[in-house]
């Protein structure tokens, strides 16, 4: 077997039906017709994957839910001495076999950032790890960038299959699905019939053509030191973020933003500890118990967001920018702040001055 199958457009539903028997299959789907809202949702027979338009929200929540119960706890009173409690803990895992079908290369690549933080090094995040191990990615070779896309600027591209188990390559009449990892190949081989030589050739051609595309004009890697130089230039930051309303949508839609907060929600004698998304754009994110806030205004907060992605992260992780270039933050920003421009101006104006 070649590790490739061909799925005609009208056979896609059948494939997903089959897959959904073994996996929890996530696909980009239309959530609301009126607002054209596309996001990742669990496949169920009858639902159609939206493979020709980009999703507003990234598939981040599949491995990193916006709210994740870590464990449940119950206080148990000692009947002889009711002042004393013992605590009953129950870990909570939700990590069956999962397949993400139809994410874009930038979406899938976003998890590379998570992997660095949650899997490498001394401490591993077991919740993320278990989900990660049980999830396969069938990633779409991306055909339709828009004015906000810039994956090539951050060292990726529309055919970048980093982190993917399968490539979904659109060709005339359907898709060629190609296994890239062992798990991916195994799944592909049991899921359909091989493409004809013409179809296989068309897919290869499509991959090559797409890989040659340059999405995004500038190279936005290598700005780590510019940020450091620019750190205390508050005029620069004021100019960049004056319109910002600190809504944090950029962090919410971002496939690489992994900040979280841990809280207990309890009522009566029992409750649960949960992890939920947090945003560095919020005042409360860095608010200290005494009332001091090291990032009191949006300038410090936005500086942190840019700095984290383009300076602190690459300095720590071998130059890897923690931005996948999907452009969601640009597209959804209510006040049209463009992170590409901010990063570029870090250097440009710094150079001008130098």
């Amino acid at each position, binding site marked *: 077997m070649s590790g490739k199958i061909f799925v005609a457009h009208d056979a896609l539903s059948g494939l997903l039906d089959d897959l959904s028997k073994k996996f929890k299959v996530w696909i980009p789907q239309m*959530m*609301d017709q*009126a*607002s*054209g*809202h596309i*996001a990742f949702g669990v496949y169920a027979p009858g639902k159609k994957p939206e493979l020709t338009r980009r999703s*507003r*929200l990234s598939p981040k929540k599949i491995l990193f839910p*916006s*709210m994740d119960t870590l464990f449940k706890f119950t206080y148990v009173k000692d009947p002889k001495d009711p002042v004393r409690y013992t605590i009953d803990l129950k870990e909570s895992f939700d990590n069956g076999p999962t397949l993400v079908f139809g994410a874009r290369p930038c979406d899938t690549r976003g998890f590379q950032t998570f992997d660095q933080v949650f899997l490498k090094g001394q401490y591993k995040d077991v919740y993320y790890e278990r989900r990660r191990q049980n999830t396969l990615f069938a990633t779409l070779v991306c055909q*339709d*960038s*828009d*004015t*906000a896309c810039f994956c090539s600027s951050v060292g990726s591209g529309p055919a970048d299959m980093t982190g993917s188990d399968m490539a979904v390559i659109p060709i005339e009449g359907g898709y060629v699905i190609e296994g890239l990892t062992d798990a991916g190949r195994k799944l592909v081989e049991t899921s359909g019939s091989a493409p004809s030589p013409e179809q296989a050739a068309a897919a290869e051609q499509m991959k090559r053509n797409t890989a040659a595309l340059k999405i995004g004009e500038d190279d936005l890697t290598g700005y780590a030191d510019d940020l450091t130089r620019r750190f205390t230039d508050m005029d620069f930051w004021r100019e960049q973020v*004056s*319109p910002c*309303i*600190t*809504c*944090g*949508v950029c962090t*919410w*839609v971002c496939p690489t933003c992994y900040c979280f*907060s841990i*809280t207990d*929600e309890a009522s009566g004698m029992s409750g649960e500890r*949960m992890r*939920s998304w947090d*945003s560095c754009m*919020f*005042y*409360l994110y860095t608010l200290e118990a005494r009332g001091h806030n090291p990032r009191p*205004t949006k300038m410090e907060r936005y500086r942190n967001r840019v700095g984290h992605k383009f300076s602190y992260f690459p300095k720590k992780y071998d130059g890897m920018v923690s931005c996948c270039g999907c452009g969601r933050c*640009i597209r*959804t920003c*209510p*006040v*049209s*702040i*463009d992170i*590409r*421009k901010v990063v570029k101006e870090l250097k440009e104006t710094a150079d001008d001055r130098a």
Partner: protein
Amino acid sequence: MDDKTNALREHVKGIFSNLELVLGWEPGYDPLHTRPFYVRTESDIDRLTANCLSFQNLTRYLAKSMNAVDPAADGRKIGVCVKGCDSRSLVALIQEKFVSRDRVYVIGLPCRGTLDARRIRALVPDPARIRSVNAEGDELVVETDRGISRFALDRAIARKCLQCRYPNPVIHDVLIGDPVTPRLKIDAENPSVAAVEALSLEDRLLFWENQLDRCIRCFACRNACPLCVCQNHCIMETRMPKWITQYRNMNEKFMFHMIHALHLAGRCTECGECERVCPVGIPVALIKEKINAIIYEMLDYESGIDPEAVPPLLTFSPKETGI
């Protein structure tokens, strides 16, 4: 360059020496986007634009950023560009003493409607690559890589604009452009609210649940709202008192939107910013529009019209009965 933008720039040039700064708009990252813009120097003025893409309600920055703006030692005013709906927010902020009328120079811009980028994307063949967007009379002309599309402006403007009752600023120091005829009469029924009310009670619940289920609790609606003045101290985020838990379930999402709506009862000026900024497309403003309708019917009050009026839920009348 369109006439309105030119007229605005000319006017600002004439008065800029008397102002500390001017809040306006400049083009965003592509022709479908616009960015709020702080005109701080004379040379900035030529970046100003004013057109059907001037979405943002700039009064939002007045209440929330007054402290961030350096207080003018010499008492110079802050200039702010307002559309009809924005001007009502400004009135409400003056009412609630968040903005002092004599601190602002109000540049009024009568408005025929602002575009809804989502609607445009559905109308043009290649929405990914739009080169230019221009309103020509009642027509919108959109140029993309694949050519030029023309269609009626009404097909592309925001929901709130289709039912606009106050296209002309209700408060201004200067008016740039000719007044526009309102699309709806003041006492006209809100057609979107009516559309929701046409559903059965059960369907209405399902409708809202379906909408609010998408909410990711990013609070963009809150942050964009010029009258959500609590900001960093919003009860949505504080755990003391604890109105909301960290659960991301329907109960909490519903509760959030009920808090948002009821906190704006009698205050919302229907600028629609909450709805525009929602990343998941929830018609957030539609919730508040109903409360506005109730308050108009019950207490004959509209927010953001009279700077001297007291918001209706901050006052009472002993005589009113039958409510």
